[in-house]
């Protein structure tokens, strides 16, 4: 991602809280990070996980518990949440990677339901009531996050760090291999890459970063609850990423911002929000598969470049009878 975009992004993040309610912005950033982490798996590796809320939710609960009952400072709690999600991602990934396409998606869904069940029944999660009263705490033991602005800048730092990490991964040789796997897995395999290892790694990274997003959300709202681990959220993050643009670096963020803002603006209209989101999904799948950012990139490339225009990025085609 080039320098200008970075400057604009950081600049926008710095001045935004003076114009928009900072708690709302913090929510946008958390879900933005979630979608970016998810995109690592679907946009760059071509694997559709339908259970990503398991990572968001489990980290949310772990962080909440550590912050409230163990007394960890927020940044340690968030890191622990991310690590926990990464660990779960390691286990889930090992199981899910063995299958392709739709079966992969179904395994992730089933595994996520098991996590949901644990969230529902484990005594420390508070079941239907949720984990309440998570303290904002003092970041690094110094900065009181009860101050809304301080909290926002803390979240902004976490978001930018996570985003930078994802950008680095995507541009690295590792990221190139992931893209190769997305485009043509058998060929990547024939080139000698241990495709399973790469997929697994991508899964773990995606899970851990999704966990960081979930843990941060818990600190902001001082709350972890069942919807954080439900398959509805898994579906929502797919929408956010699709809407913004699969396989683009800024896309998921744009998609997340749009969906969260839509939900907020339309909240007075009751369940028409859900209808609006559903319609957006439909229109996106039928007409704008590249997503907002993807379409913009495509448009600019067509107009200003003499190079042949990219193929539409798509979720990887399923090969027949894979039994790796």
């Amino acid at each position, binding site marked *: 991602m080039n320098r200008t975009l970075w400057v604009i992004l950081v600049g926008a993040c710095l001045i935004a809280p003076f114009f928009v309610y900072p708690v709302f912005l913090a929510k946008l950033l958390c879900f933005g990070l979630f979608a970016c982490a998810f995109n690592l798996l679907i946009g760059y590796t071509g694997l559709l996980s339908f259970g990503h809320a398991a990572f968001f939710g489990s980290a949310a609960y772990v962080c909440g518990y550590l912050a409230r009952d163990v007394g960890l400072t927020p940044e340690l709690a968030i890191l622990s949440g991310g690590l926990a999600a990464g660990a779960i991602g390691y286990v889930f990934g090992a199981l899910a990677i063995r299958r392709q396409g*739709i*079966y992969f998606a179904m*395994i992730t869904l089933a595994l996520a339901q098991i996590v949901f*069940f644990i969230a529902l029944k484990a005594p420390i999660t508070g079941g239907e009531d949720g984990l309440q009263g998570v303290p904002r705490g003092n970041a690094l033991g110094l900065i009181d996050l009860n101050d809304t602005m301080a909290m926002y800048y803390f979240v902004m730092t976490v978001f930018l760090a996570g985003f930078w990490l994802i950008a680095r991964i995507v541009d690295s040789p590792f990221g190139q291999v992931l893209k190769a796997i997305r485009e043509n897995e058998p060929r990547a395999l024939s080139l000698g890459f241990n495709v399973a290892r790469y997929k697994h790694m991508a899964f773990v990274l995606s899970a851990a970063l999704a966990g960081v997003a979930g843990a941060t959300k818990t600190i902001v709202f001082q709350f972890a609850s069942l919807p954080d681990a439900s398959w509805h959220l898994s579906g929502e993050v797919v929408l956010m990423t699709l809407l913004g643009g699969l396989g683009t670096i800024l896309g998921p963020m744009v998609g997340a911002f749009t969906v969260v803002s839509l939900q907020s603006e339309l909240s007075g209209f009751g*369940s028409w929000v*859900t209808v609006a989101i*559903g319609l957006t999904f439909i229109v996106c799948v039928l007409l704008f598969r590249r997503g907002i950012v993807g379409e913009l990139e495509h448009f600019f490339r067509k107009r200003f470049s003499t190079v042949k225009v990219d193929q539409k990025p798509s979720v990887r085609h399923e090969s027949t009878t894979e039994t790796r």
Partner: protein
Amino acid sequence: MSLSLNAILAQAMLGLTNGAFYAILSLGLAVIFGLLNIINFAHGAVYMLGAMVALIGYSYLGSWIGVPELQAGFWWALALAPLVVGVFGMIIERTMLKRLYQLDHLYGLLLTFGIALVLQGFFLNYFSTGGTPYPATPAVLKGAVDLGFMYFPTYRLFAIIASLAVCFATWYVIERTQIGALLRAGTENPNLVQAFGVNVPLMVTLTYGFGVALAAFAGVVAAPIYSISPLMGADLIIIVFAVVVIGGMGSIMGAIVTGLSLGMIEGLTKVIYAPAANTVIFLLMVLVLLIRPAGLFGKER
């Protein structure tokens, strides 16, 4: 809770009721996946739509069209709701799903997910999630049957029998008749079948409509038991997915047998440790996907 034989048998009967619904819903899903290669995420929503059509037909339709005495009773709903919803499904297929066939079939999943959200969101504005009771349960089906170990509501017995009848009728048509043979051939090699002069796209559309109609039928049958809520399908759909995956995504008999069995396994789990009832199914799903991804009855595709 007591583990007496009566209690176990009673829970098994309740599980059988749930199982009958799982069977008929996963049957529709399996039929659609078999021919269209699409995971119909809207299946739960059209199940709900069937129930809603039944409710509206009885309680609201009359006053809308100015004939307040007009109340479409249960039997009318049973016949008409699947038709109405089936047509709705065919329209969806023709206008939207058709465009996605040459793409990765995960887009089909996403599109139907969007449709489900639209349907649910729409009805959530008018009906509470706590459930609206269905007012038109036929009097002949009220009351209970004394099974010795429990009093079993007559209507639930009817629900089991009706669902199983429809399931086996469908299985028979698909596996044993000419039409079914065409369908199965179309699944394996659409181009060849088209070359023989069969209108494959039409077959696809009708199949989707049929699968959806099955779900709507289940919805009407379910309405008197479970009340009608906009989210009644959402809660059910992922379990039905699990059933289909375990049974085998394209297998008709697999869907029926697995649906019934899992319903009973779930019911029996409730006796031992109620909260785990759902989760047992997902654990099984993971196991099947790892050991035999095509499902217990399915073939590798």
